[in-house]
């Protein structure tokens, strides 16, 4: 494996870890279920994408790399579906979104 590929892969892995971290921080800090949903759905999925891309760069065959990249859209579809289901249910149960002035 050429060294630049190794660096690129490592950079993507670290970037992925960063987005996961941001998602976790958002999950812990954000005030209500809708905002936490934003944090998880966006940051974690981007983190997963970076990690998978970083690993795909190291794959030996094209098919193996594509298999890794195939995982991403599956996870995205799952997140999109579950995220909407959660938001839809929260709305149906009458959970009001947190707003800035209400907290004051």
């Amino acid at each position, binding site marked *: 494996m050429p060294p630049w590929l190794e660096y690129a892969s490592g950079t993507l892995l670290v970037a992925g870890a*960063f*987005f996961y971290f*941001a*998602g976790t*921080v*958002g999950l812990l*800090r*954000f*005030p*209500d279920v*809708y*905002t936490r*949903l*934003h*944090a998880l*759905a*966006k*940051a974690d*999925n*981007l*983190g997963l*994408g970076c990690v998978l891309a970083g690993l795909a760069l190291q794959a030996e*065959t*094209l*098919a*193996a790399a*594509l*298999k890794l990249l*195939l995982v991403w859209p599956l996870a*995205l*579809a799952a*997140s*999109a*579906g579950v*995220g*909407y289901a959660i*938001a*839809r249910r*929260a*709305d*149906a149960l009458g959970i009001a*979104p*947190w*707003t*800035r002035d209400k907290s004051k």
Partner: protein
Amino acid sequence: MLNTVLRRGAGFAFLWWVLAEGSTVAWGLGAVAVAACVAASLRLLPPRQGTFSLAALIAFVAFFLWQSMRGGLQVAAMALSPRPGLSPCMLDYPVALPPGPPRLLLVASLGLMPGTVGVRLDDDRLRLHVLDARLPAAAEAKALEAVIARLFGRRTA
């Protein structure tokens, strides 16, 4: 109809090739698998009218990748900043896309775009939860709609 079968067959065959990691001995069972999957998908998702263009798919994927990167960065910045600049609000957005797959793709992908999560879809009114009221959420949803409309072979509604 035949067109749809061939297209889906090719898609599943490609996926099988990826899953089997390029192994060529797998094609016996692979043919059975592809046939079963095409049958299942025809039953679950009947063929529809409309054209399909690779260019539009690439445009959609590129738009999606770029926007989800922006979305991730934005959420990361908000989560990690010492004072998160959150001012969430609900936004009722009138959907122009036709019902069925295009509209559902819009709802699903909005959840991964910067600052928006679909909360409820009633006919052609979509309620969005927006992370920051100052963001141009409606304009971005409009742009996404245009890309999806192209993907499904229609002029922007």
